[in-house]
């Protein structure tokens, strides 16, 4: 179970202005700007739930995910995931979660993908049988047979992203955080990834929390959505409910755009 209660996070950012003379002055005196990335964020996600976490760019989605992964310390509030506080008990916590940061890569660039997978097996100390079972199943589902021996640098974005997902699941995580897992994928890859996430949730009961800008991801995957804007949770409800309130005939994209407009974010 994931429970966030009143989580706050403020970033201090050095102010930069354009131009050479200003850049030079910044060497001697710095001005800082404080950005409240998260204001009083609270929500609960039950075991086995699949939740879409949406909001415009810069709303605080990634910050929330990083806090839930134990990568970032919040300034205030509590976060309890399966009985642990992620940033206080990082090592024990991350053993039970899987994460895909869509914008980054966890694969080693110059060695075959399968070497990266084996490294992850050794890091999590996954036993050989579990590793093999998971790998075989994931490779089958995401159709990766031919590229296991290819170095990550030679993969297409879609192939790489599918490998990233495999890498995050080899150790049987109970919770999966997906931060923009379908970014830049073509239609075929998107469908494969969606289908796969759905199956994972249905068959293994993995809790999934995903952020995305692709509303079709949300439509295909999640019943519940949480909307965040300017660091605040604005809405926590079901997709059906939203659809009922939306203007007739609006597609998911238009619905969300209407939402953003309504909340002025």
């Amino acid at each position, binding site marked *: 179970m994931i429970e966030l209660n009143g989580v706050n996070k403020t970033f201090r950012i050095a102010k930069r202005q354009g131009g050479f003379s200003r850049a030079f002055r910044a060497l001697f005196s710095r001005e800082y700007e404080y950005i409240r990335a998260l204001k009083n964020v609270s929500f609960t996600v039950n075991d086995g739930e699949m939740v879409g976490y949406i909001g415009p760019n810069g709303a605080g989605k990634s910050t929330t995910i990083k806090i839930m992964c134990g990568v970032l*310390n919040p300034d205030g509030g509590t976060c309890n995931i399966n009985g642990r506080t992620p940033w206080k008990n990082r090592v024990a916590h991350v053993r039970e979660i899987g994460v895909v940061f869509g914008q980054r890569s966890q694969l080693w660039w110059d*060695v075959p993908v399968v070497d990266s997978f084996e*490294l992850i097996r050794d*890091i*999590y100390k996954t036993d050989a049988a579990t590793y093999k079972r998971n790998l075989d199943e994931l490779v089958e589902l995401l159709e990766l047979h031919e590229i296991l021996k290819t170095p990550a640098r030679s993969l297409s974005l879609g192939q790489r992203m599918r490998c990233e997902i495999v890498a995050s699941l080899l150790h049987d995580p109970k919770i999966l955080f997906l931060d923009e897992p379908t970014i830049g994928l073509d239609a075929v890859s998107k469908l494969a990834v969606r289908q796969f996430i759905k199956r994972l949730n249905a068959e293994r009961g993995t809790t999934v929390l995903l952020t995305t800008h692709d509303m079709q991801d949300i439509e295909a995957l999640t019943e519940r959505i949480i909307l965040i804007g300017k660091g605040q949770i604005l809405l926590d409800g079901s997709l059906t409910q939203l659809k009922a309130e939306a203007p007739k005939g609006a597609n998911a994209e238009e619905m969300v755009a209407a939402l953003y407009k309504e909340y002025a974010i």
Partner: protein
Amino acid sequence: MFGLTAINFKPYRALFRIRFTNTLQYRAAAFAGLTTQFAWGFMYILAFAAFYRSNPGSFPMEFSHTVTYIWLQQAFVALFFLWFYDNSIIESVESGSIAYELVRPMDLYSRWFSITAANRVSRTLLRAIPILAIAIFLPRPFRLVLPVELMRYILFFISMALALGVVLSFSMLIYISAFYTINSMGTRIIFGVSADFLSGAYIPLPFFPDTMRFVLELLPFGSMQNMPLLIFSGHVYGVAAFRGIGIQLFWLVTLVIVGRFWMSRALKRVVAQGG
């Protein structure tokens, strides 16, 4: 202390292996490095030879010791020079992919230590053997002179391993400082070049003024390339060698403790950059 007891080595060995293989891919870079090191070594030796010719008696090291020192130094450049940073570590902090390293159930200090050790060792393997193989067959005054006593080899290998440890734990401090700066290029260059100078990378420490040399030998700088190279070339032997190894051990332990403590502080305020 600082999680040292909880470490199980298997994941770190695996990490060492993958980083090692990853670096071995860069053969062209190694070949380019090899050529540079040769040219550099010759240039150094010729410059020293000119000085020695003017007045051989006024130098603190015998010419053959200096030549051996220089060839060995060129062969192990990737092992001992601080400015041979592991850019993958700094990039991970600056680009924010550190987030992926922190979602692994491992200790970040040991993780970086293994990666950067693997990187240095594999780069050295590609360079050291050809350089040594050629340097021992060069004509007389320019030849790398191999020690005859077994004891000297043993002390050299111990001292070399410790020097690598001191270099790694010292460079860890520079990597950790990347958490506090947006771009650590400046810190890296200033610390790298000055620490290399003070550790005898450009001029061997025996050539330094006596008081300065005495102080540097007690600081971590004297525990880096200085000690193994002087032991191998025969300039340092007997009690002095054991004393030097003792100081190396002291600095290795101290720097690891300081680095681990600082890392645990830094991680409390870590900001993983970017979305």
